[in-house]
Every structure is written in structure tokens, then in C-alpha cells.
């Protein structure tokens, strides 16, 4: 696993999340955090370390174990004009708060014009031997749902910029942070003013021969794969996976005429289906080759290293897929 930089003024992806929360808490009285073990313990992954000490128990709340309950409570606080930021201890537990998110958070503005500015942060993804209940990428459950926004930061900049933008956004936003990036990715500390616009993809690498559409940790996998292959491939980081930046996908496809969708979510979940649907319907004439998909098989995330390593897309397996795509 290459380190992406090493200078000393740099911070990790995890520190960027913490800094985004700290700055939001400092700048906006309406912001408060709630979730399991985020106070005294600083969160299962340390994303809220030090915040209880700085902001006190009225703004950094340890909750009982009740995902439906505290997500619902966050909705109620948002109704009153607050800016609650929920942490799910693992993204896998999104299934335990799903009804509040789909029934109340997602539909209320369309039904009655009441905005619910609510953020739900969730550590997602594999690579830490979490197994079926601690390594999932469940963003697909929310992708496509009217009224929700879903972001998946891949970089230190976006870990900060998307989190700040999500907190300032008037809609419910889910932020799927990637556990494997928390301590692996480092970069210069972003300025307090940085905001990553929601709904906008980012060209992580310019290229002309093909486009890899991806997000989250797979952005790094794609960049490594392109290096391995030594081909001139464009890497598009969706950043916001719902509603995602279809224009950017088609723009890149117009340049490269070949597309590979790469995701960590099992192949029939995630965002790949919608991206490939878009490409097929609106990018048909741009395509010189069938669009391709590289993603794990349709199973839960396995625990054993031998299995998880085979399950997750690697730079090598991605390079192979790209090679096949370019050879078409």
C-alpha cells in the first residue's frame, strides 16, 4: 500500500473528518453531534476524539443503542432548525435506521416543503477484516431515493469539503466515509473555507483512452491500476453518488469512448447499475466498446484475509479489466 505523500504538515482522511466536524461546531451553534460512543470514547474510529472536551455533552451526545431512535431525533431537531450530525458506528447499521431515513427524512420536503438539514456519517467499506457486518458498502440502499443525497469522499480534501458542504446543505445527506482510508490517505490540511460542491464529480486523473467511473477507496485502486497499466486512462471520482454527476460521466465518455465502472459494493448493489444504465441510454453513440463493470461478487463481505483480498477489487484486477476494455 503506497503512502500517497509524507510531508509533516499533512493530515489524514480521519483527521480531516474530525477537523470538518470541529470547524462546523465552532462556526455554527446549530450544529451538534450524536451517536454511539462518540463522546467519552471519541467514536469507534476516533472521528470525534477531543470534541466532547471542546464542545461539551450538549453538543456531542453519546446515545443509547437505537439507530431508528437517534436518527429520528436528529430529524426532529432539524425540523426545529438545528443541524444535527449523526454517526452510525458502522455503515452496516444503516439497515437499522433505514425507515426513518426513507420515510421521514427523504419524503418530508417533497410532501410539505419542510427542509430537514441532517447529516448521517457512517464508516463503510472493507479491508480491515470486518466481515459481513462491519465491512459493507450499503450506499446502494439510498442511491436512487428521492430526497436523499449520498456522498463518498475519497480524499483528504473531500473528507473535509464534502462533510462541511453536507452539514451546510438543507437536505438530508449521508456521508459514507471509508474505513480503509481513515489513516491511509494523507494530504495538506484543507483551508477552513473549503467546500466540495455536492453533485459534482472530480477528474482524479486526466486520460483519453478510457474512463474509470468510481468513488471512495476505489478511486485509489483505479489510480494505481492506471499506473500499473501505463495507459492514458481517465479516472472520474463521482464523490456524490446520489444524485450523481451524469453530465461529467458523459463528458468523459465523449472524450474516451470507453468506460469501466469500478465499485467496492457487491456488483448488483451500489451505484454501478444506475451509471451503466445512464451510459447505455444516453452514451450509446459515444461507446466504442461495451461498458464494463468491475466489482465484488454478489455476496456479503467475507472475513478471512484470503477471501476478503479476493473479494475486493485490487489495482491488479482492475488493471486486467482495463486491459480487456482497451483491447476491445
Amino acid at each position, binding site marked *: 500500500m503506497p503512502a500517497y505523500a509524507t510531508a509533516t504538515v499533512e493530515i489524514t482522511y480521519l483527521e480531516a473528518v474530525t477537523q470538518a466536524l470541529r470547524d462546523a461546531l465552532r462556526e455554527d451553534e446549530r450544529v*451538534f453531534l450524536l451517536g454511539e460512543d462518540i463522546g467519552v470514547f471519541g467514536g469507534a474510529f476516533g472521528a470525534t476524539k477531543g470534541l466532547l472536551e471542546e464542545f461539551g455533552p*450538549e453538543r456531542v*451526545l453519546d*446515545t*443509547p443503542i*437505537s439507530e*431508528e*431512535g*437517534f*436518527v*429520528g*431525533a*436528529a*430529524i*426532529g*431537531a*432539524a*425540523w*426545529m*432548525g*438545528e443541524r*444535527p450530525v449523526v454517526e452510525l458506528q458502522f455503515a452496516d447499521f444503516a439497515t437499522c435506521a433505514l*425507515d*426513518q431515513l426513507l*420515510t*421521514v427524512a427523504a*419524503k*418530508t*420536503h*417533497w*410532501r*410539505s*416543503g*419542510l*427542509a430537514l*438539514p441532517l447529516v448521517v456519517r457512517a464508516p463503510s467499506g472493507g479491508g480491515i477484516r470486518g466481515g459481513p457486518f462491519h465491512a459493507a458498502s450499503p450506499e446502494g440502499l439510498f442511491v436512487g431515493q*428521492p*430526497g436523499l*443525497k449520498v456522498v463518498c469522499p475519497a480524499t483528504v480534501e473531500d473528507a473535509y469539503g464534502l462533510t462541511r458542504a453536507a452539514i451546510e*446543505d*438543507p*437536505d438530508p445527506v449521508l456521508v459514507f466515509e471509508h474505513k480503509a482510508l481513515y489513516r491511509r490517505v494523507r494530504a495538506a490540511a484543507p483551508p477552513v473555507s473549503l467546500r466540495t460542491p*455536492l*453533485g459534482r464529480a472530480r477528474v482524479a486523473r486526466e486520460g483519453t483512452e478510457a474512463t474509470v467511473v468510481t468513488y471512495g477507496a476505489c478511486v485509489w485502486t483505479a489510480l494505481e491500476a492506471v499506473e500499473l497499466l501505463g495507459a492514458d486512462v481517465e479516472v472520474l471520482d463521482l464523490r*456524490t453518488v*446520489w*444524485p*450523481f*454527476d*451524469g*453530465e461529467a460521466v458523459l463528458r468523459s465518455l465523449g472524450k474516451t469512448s470507453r468506460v469501466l465502472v469500478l465499485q467496492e459494493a457487491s456488483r448488483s448493489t451500489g451505484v454501478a447499475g*444506475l451509471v451503466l444504465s*445512464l451510459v447505455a*441510454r*444516453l452514451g450509446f453513440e459515444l461507446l466504442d466498446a461495451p461498458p464494463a463493470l468491475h466489482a465484488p461478487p454478489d455476496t456479503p463481505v467475507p472475513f478471512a484475509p484470503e477471501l476478503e483480498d479476493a473479494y475486493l477489487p485490487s489495482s491488479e484486477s482492475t488493471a486486467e479489466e482495463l486491459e480487456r476494455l482497451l483491447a476491445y
Partner: protein
Amino acid sequence: MSRQQRLELLRLCLLQRLFEERVLALYRQGRIVGSVYTGRGQEAVAAAAGLALGPDDVVCPLNRELACHFARGVTVAEAFRNFLGRADGPTRGRDGNMHFGVPAKGVFPLVSMLGDLVPVTVGAAFACKRRGERRVALTFIGEGAFSVGDTHEGLNLAGVWHVPAVFVLQSNRYSYSTPVERQMVNTNLAERIEGGWSIPAERVDGTDALATFAAVRAAVERARSGYGPQAVEALTLRIHGHAAHDDARYVPAELREAYADRDPVARLEERLRLDGVAADELAAVREQAREEVERGLREAEASPTPDPSELEDGVWAAPLAPPDAAR
């Protein structure tokens, strides 16, 4: 409770009663589509709870609490517009029947999924407490919805956070066709809420408007004064069907009879008469309510129907370029 307040309580009960009778008539004429839920026999609980709140308090009413909407300033026309699916109604025709709210008036839009609004109410109360505002958030919980996990998660949070939330339990003995005895073993919800979540809870006869008002008002003031969450269990019978399509034949005759002389509206009128309110004054209140309902209906019927071209407006408060240009 002042004479004026008691007349207002009657007015609110009558508004719900007459509005719902009108709605059912329209439904039978096919002028209202979908499902129609009414709260006959529970008007006093809805009216008392709405009236017990202060001007800045907020509420999450359910299906049977139309009078609570009216108490918060929702108009008859607004309510009819929702039943009729009109463009200028609270949900712009996007939702129907009692599935609405008027946020500008402190009323959260009802969602159907039972239990969801209990944590929402607790969160609203938490926000008020956090900001040091002396406001209260109130919601209703049917005895059937008491079985839903979200209800328990919400009650627990209310206790742990010690928030100014008030829970009005609508123990009307039925959940659709399911009697309370098949819904739970211990049917004394007040006892259970007090024992289980340490939330002070009082049981009242929900067909007695004045007693219900006194209980909810006291609970609201305790919550407002920093004594934490409070509960009132109002005992009633859902004397009609779950919705307009349901004749409730599963309700035993004895039970119906037991409630035959416990119509909350009739009881309140009788009580006011005993308290010296002149018959013609009571008749005037009823007549004014009837006129208000008819006027509201005429207004609503004059409202425009929704324009399909606006269907996608407002899915998001801050829309993003849709991924899918091909719409």
C-alpha cells in the same frame, strides 16, 4: 379552565366531528378518493391536547387528531384541500387524507409508518431544551403503535435526555381489527410508561374533554418547567371503523354499548349546559362550526387541482443536476 376556553374546546371538538362527517359523506359520493381516517369518539383528546399547548409549542398529530390541527391554527379549508388533493393544500395534492401537517404552524407532517414520529418529537424537544427555549413538543401514540420499536426507542431517549416532550397515549382499544388484548399483555400503558421509562403518566377518560384537558395541560406545564418528559393515557373506544371502508363488525356489541353514552362531544355539551351555558349559546357554537366547515369546503373546492408538470419540484430543498438528463 375559563368559560371561554371550555367553549373553545367544544368548538374544536365540533369542528372535527362535523368536518369528518362531511368528509365521509364526500367519500361515499366518490368526491374524495383513497382512504379516509376519522377520529369519532376521540375528538376530545385531540382538541384538549391541541388547546393545552402554548403558541410556540410543536406537535406531531396522527390520523385521529384533526381537532389538534385546528387548535394550532390549521384552517378547515387547508384540511379539506388535503383530502381533496388540491394544489394549494398543505401537501399540494402530493399526499391525501390526514397525511399532512403545516410546519409553519408548528405541526409536523404525519407519516404513515407508526412509531416514527415518537423519536422525531423527542428530537424537537431536545432542540428546544438545548437552546434554553421554554417550548414543548407533543405527539400521540396509539396503543397499537405502542408495539412498534421506534416508540420504545423514542421513550427511552426522552427519559435519558430529560427533554420537554409530552406523549398522549390514544388507548382506543383497537388497532385496525386487532383488540388491545391481542396487541399486548399488560394494557395499562400509563403504568408501563411510568415504570419502564420513569416518565410520569396519568390515565384519564378520553371522552371527558375537561378532565383530558386538565391532565394534558398539567403534563405540558411540567414538561415546560423542566421536569422532563410526561405522558397522559386517554381511554376511549374507536367507535367507528379503522377507515371509511371498515364497518368494524369485529367490535363486540357489548363494547359498543358500553360507550354508547360516552360520546365526548355530547358529554361536553351536557357538561357546559350543567355549568350554566345557555342552550342557544351552545347551539350557536355548533351552528358556527357547521358554517365554518361548509365555508372551508367551498373554499377548498374552489382551489385548483395540481399541475403534473410540477411533480418533480421540491424533491430536494437544494436540487442537484439530476443524473438522468433524459426525463
